[in-house]
């Protein structure tokens, strides 16, 4: 081993290449997040997932614009396109009425534009999944970090609460709750109220998944000496939690929230499928699947919302897996 006698810090990484001519002397270090990001960019599968996600988010944001140019308003009836004489009420034309005008064909009975409904459905799906995940992450991270750092009876109470929440029959509860919630509550009504309710139900019952992971990570981080170093400098507990521990927990929080979103998409779809989620006529993927069940002879009706759910969940999962590999290459 050759060690320079004075051991003046020598850069171990190839940071020199990042030094532009405009920064002659300032030596920039590369943070672990930057390193993970570079690793992620090399992961083709994860980047494909990310591309699909960005596409989906753009579709959700610009749904009115897309529908204006490529479809028809989602609630507009086109009964002239439905075969009323044969009695099946199926769409006229081959493949469920797919044409340049109606990219995914039309609904049976009412003849609404399926393309528009799938596009608008992405808004509900993503909105509920994102907000519910956000709620889970906020509750789960806060309680997880407190339980892990405080230990003792605080940890015992929070951990038992997590067990209770995980054992709770969520689906049954959601169905029951949907039955008793009136049309007007908390100054909200109709589907706005439904969205808020779904976000709270899904978010509030999923926080223990994040909470447990964060608690476990905090338990191991708490024993690291940099926490003692902060304490021996006189740091207060909030500072230790926010400045010393939280930066080390960003990676698991990010990874597990990315993996929680698709399960929330599925859960929202399941609730809407069962008729306790979003109410018609607002389009939602789960609700469309539910409508399609009675028309099993017309598979396109079920195919497009089904594919939308499938690709959304797949893209989130691939991206989440890539994110996890990037942040923790040893855990592969």
């Amino acid at each position, binding site marked *: *081993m050759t*060690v320079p006698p*004075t*051991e*003046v*810090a020598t*850069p*171990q*990484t190839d*940071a020199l290449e990042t030094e532009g001519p405009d920064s002659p*002397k*300032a*030596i*920039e*270090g*590369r*943070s*672990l*997040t930057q390193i993970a990001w570079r690793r992620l960019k090399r992961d083709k599968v994860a980047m494909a997932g990310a591309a699909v996600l960005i596409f989906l988010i753009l579709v959700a944001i610009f749904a009115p614009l897309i529908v204006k140019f490529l479809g028809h308003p989602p609630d507009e009836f086109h009964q002239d396109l439905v075969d009323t004489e044969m009695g099946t009420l199926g769409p006229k034309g081959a493949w469920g009425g797919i044409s340049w005008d109606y990219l995914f064909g039309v609904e049976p009975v009412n003849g609404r534009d399926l393309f528009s409904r799938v596009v608008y459905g992405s808004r509900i799906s993503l909105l509920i999944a994102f907000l519910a995940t956000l709620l889970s992450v906020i509750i789960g991270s806060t309680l997880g970090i407190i339980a892990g750092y405080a230990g003792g009876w605080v940890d015992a109470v929070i951990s038992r609460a997590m067990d209770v929440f995980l054992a709770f029959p969520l689906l049954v509860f959601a169905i029951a709750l949907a039955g008793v919630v009136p049309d007007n509550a908390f100054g909200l009504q109709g589907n706005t109220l439904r969205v808020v309710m779904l976000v709270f139900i899904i978010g509030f019952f999923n926080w223990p998944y994040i909470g447990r992971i964060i608690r476990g990570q905090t338990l191991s981080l708490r024993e*690291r*000496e*940099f926490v*003692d*170093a*902060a*304490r*021996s*400098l*006189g*740091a*207060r507990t909030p*500072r230790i939690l926010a400045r*010393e521990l939280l*930066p*080390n927990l*960003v990676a698991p929080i990010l990874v597990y929230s990315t993996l929680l979103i698709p399960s929330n998409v599925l859960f929202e779809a399941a609730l809407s499928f069962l008729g306790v989620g979003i109410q018609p006529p607002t389009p939602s993927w789960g609700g469309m699947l539910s409508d399609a069940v009675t028309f099993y002879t017309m598979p396109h009706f079920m195919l497009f919302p089904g594919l939308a759910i499938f690709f959304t969940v797949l893209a989130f999962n691939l991206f989440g897996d890539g994110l996890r590999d990037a942040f923790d290459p040893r855990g592969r």
Partner: protein
Amino acid sequence: MPTTDPLLKVTGLTKHFPIRKGLLQRQVGAVQAVDDVTFSVQSGQTLSLVGESGCGKTTTGRMVTRLLEPTSGSILFDGRELSHLSVGQLRPLRREIQMIFQDPYSSLNPRHTVGTIVGAPFEIQGVKTPQGTKRAVQDLLELVGLNPEHYNRYPHEFSGGQRQRIGIARSLALKPRLIVADEPVSALDVSIQAQVINLLEDLQEELGLTYIVIAHDLSVVRQMSDRVAVMYLGNLVEIADGHDLYTDSRHPYTRALLSAVPIPDTSRREKRERIRLEGDVPSPIDPPPGCRFHTRCWKATDVCRTQVPPLVEIAPRHEVACHHPEDSLVAAAPAQAAAPVEDAPSGTAASGTMTA
């Protein structure tokens, strides 16, 4: 030796970690990690705490820095009692007592830059520096032999020795008077160990620091210690001036410990009598009665099994807790008589405590 009051005076320091079991968390026992430890450190000097793993030396260090609260005993730092101060009361005192940690890989937050890590003391304590925190941090980096340009780098971009230097820079930021170094070099390569020890010595000279160095390796602390205290199973068994302890140790355990230090010279190695201790260190949950070392001591008698040997001054500035101390290797008694005896302020020697 000046007769001023010591900077740090630890008396009867004890730490028992409770063992709790069952639903009601009843206390069923205690790990007696540190039991009745007494020592003191003069300003500007270095005291080394040595002993095997699990002998309580780290626990002692953590009580002095008040990362742990002692079960009983007193810690007198510059005349102020630290042992039961609250977190808030301790905060201003944190500036004066700092710690260097054992593992440079876990003592630096991997998500913070060097600038943030070394600047944290200023931020936490709200200390304003004349030319700004960044300048102060860069001065500190330079002081410990690091390139100040590396302000924006992250810990993982440094080697173990460099990381330990970053930890030292952080501990120096608030200009402390006492630094507790918990095995500061045990995680480093041998070639780097000497550099870090030299750095600590230079800094002591330059800044007038007082050190408590915790180590399990007697050879590592030999160079820098003014006083050496040997611990066994939570007890202090011998404390003496550095040179005295290495050449004329009196406690059987210290003798055994010293005989285990490797000697590079093969001809000298053959002449040496190697003392092999039988058995393992007993559990600190249920330590042996009497002298805690009696289960492994070749000189143990009945009195060792029943009575705890007090720490007594067997020679000037040399205290041993043993019923049957070894004979002095230094044959000429006059050499000891000639040693200055003007230390030992009144009242401390009577109760078996000592001054360093």
